[in-house]
């Protein structure tokens, strides 16, 4: 059975007192290193999904009501240790999961998240924390329906960081852990480590690899195709006696996003049978 057809579950023990059986929305994660174009894709996808009739909620790191502001303030001071940084992000994530993501899923929304727990795990590992420790810390996370990993090399990231953002960020370059003599050197070393850490998680967490060395439009078309298929999975789910052969014979359609997902969206609003 495909992950997209199963009810949502937690990675490990989960959140105390949270019932996942009534979560009928879709949880879609866009992952990838800094500067790979995640936020561009999230905003394109959001517009497209809303045009197609889906209710969409998007979220991302350091946006929680509880600690979002504190994280931004603390980062300005450049006095955050690596453990404190990791746990700040874990607190931020938990607050958004409990107060934004889960309520939206309960209401049948498509939740698009610009990064999830994987970046936090990758960053903590790149900063020298024990990967098993931080993975277990994030054990209360919901297993998403799909994780699209925008995969690019550091060489692909450099032009975007320099041309689109006008330079290197202190934290995105891992300057807090002194990875190089200057921002450039540190950025290359740190991001290489983050990418390696993300690559190494691909299998454990079932990432779908998306080649992000292409143009934003190509990436968008690719993601649209995959998400259409994911949302169609809901519509075509066999209720009792499945006819898997018939379903499988149906050719994979070229993206007809609008009509396909309008129908899918109406199904999204009816809770999935457990």
């Amino acid at each position, binding site marked *: 059975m495909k992950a997209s057809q199963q009810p949502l579950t937690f990675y490990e023990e989960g959140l*105390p007192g949270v019932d996942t059986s009534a979560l009928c929305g879709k949880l879609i994660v866009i992952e990838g290193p800094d500067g790979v174009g995640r936020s561009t894709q999230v905003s394109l996808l959001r517009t497209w999904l809303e045009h197609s009739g889906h209710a969409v909620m998007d979220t991302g790191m350091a946006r929680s009501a509880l600690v979002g502001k504190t994280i931004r303030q603390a980062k300005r001071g450049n006095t955050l*240790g690596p453990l404190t940084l990791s746990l700040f992000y874990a607190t931020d994530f938990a607050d958004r999961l409990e107060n934004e993501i889960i309520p939206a899923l309960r209401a049948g929304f498509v939740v698009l998240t610009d990064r999830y727990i994987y970046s936090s795990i990758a960053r903590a590992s790149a900063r020298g924390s024990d990967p098993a420790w931080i993975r*277990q810390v994030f054990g209360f996370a919901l297993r998403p329906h799909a994780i699209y990993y925008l995969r690019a090399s550091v060489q692909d990231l450099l032009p975007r960081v320099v041309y689109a953002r006008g330079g290197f960020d202190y934290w995105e370059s891992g300057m807090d852990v002194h990875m190089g003599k200057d921002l450039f050197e540190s950025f290359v070393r740190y991001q290489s480590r983050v990418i390696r850490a993300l690559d190494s998680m691909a299998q454990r967490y079932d990432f779908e690899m998306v080649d992000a060395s292409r143009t934003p439009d190509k990436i968008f078309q690719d993601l649209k195709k995959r998400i259409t298929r994911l949302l169609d999975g809901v519509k075509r789910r066999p209720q009792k006696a499945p006819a898997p052969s018939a379903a499988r014979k149906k050719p994979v359609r070229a993206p007809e996003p609008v009509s396909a997902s309008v129908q899918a969206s109406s199904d999204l609003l009816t809770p999935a049978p457990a």
Partner: protein
Amino acid sequence: MEDWVRWKANPMRVFSSRKFPGKLIVVEGIDGSGKSTQLALLSHWLRSRGFGVVFSEWNSSPLVRETTRRGKKKDMFTPTTFSLIHATDFADRIERQILPPLRAGSIVCADRYAFTAFARDTARGVSRRWVRNLYRFAIRPTLAFYFRVPLDVALGRILGGRDALKYYEAGMDLHLSRDVEESFRLFQGRIVDEYEAMIDEFGFRVIDATLSIEEQQTKIREIVEQELDLTHPNGLLRAPWQGFVDTNGIGSARPV
């Protein structure tokens, strides 16, 4: 999944195994057990004997404290975020207040430590294993004192000293009872059960907190003297002006 199996196979490996020249003394117990008073007396005594002493309190990271205060005021916490924000506070203190002095060879006195989180968060329904993993970066204390006190005695001390019990302190977020005092009693009762179960798990030194302040302090000093081998303090930081300090006096000759 395999982490889980590994953890189960070796459940005692909770803290970091790093070794330091300094010593870490922690006090634990429910509110009103008198542990802060005892730790203050102990640290005065250690300072008067010429040792470098650093004090660290629960929930005191300047970076995190404001968030915790605001979250509590607006009732924004769930058991999970309550646990995580305290771990964040603790991580900041470990990285900046606790670890550097330990490396330098000072005695660090901590009023509450990770055990407080193990007891409180579990009483709130957070998984025992999850919260122990969360604090795996903590340094194993040299000595952990547990102040055992009957609930009624603790409640009497608290109600005597302050006007009202606070929302989270009384576990009101758990909706155990609408009555604050009753809720406090139920919640702190759960915490006591967790502490009692940790005595063997972490080798707590149990202090009978119904004894007089002086009697408790005498016992504590005896244990510290013995365990820290204060007559031959190896690697411990000594005050440079040691000769000028009245070593029999109560206070330190120098401000903290």
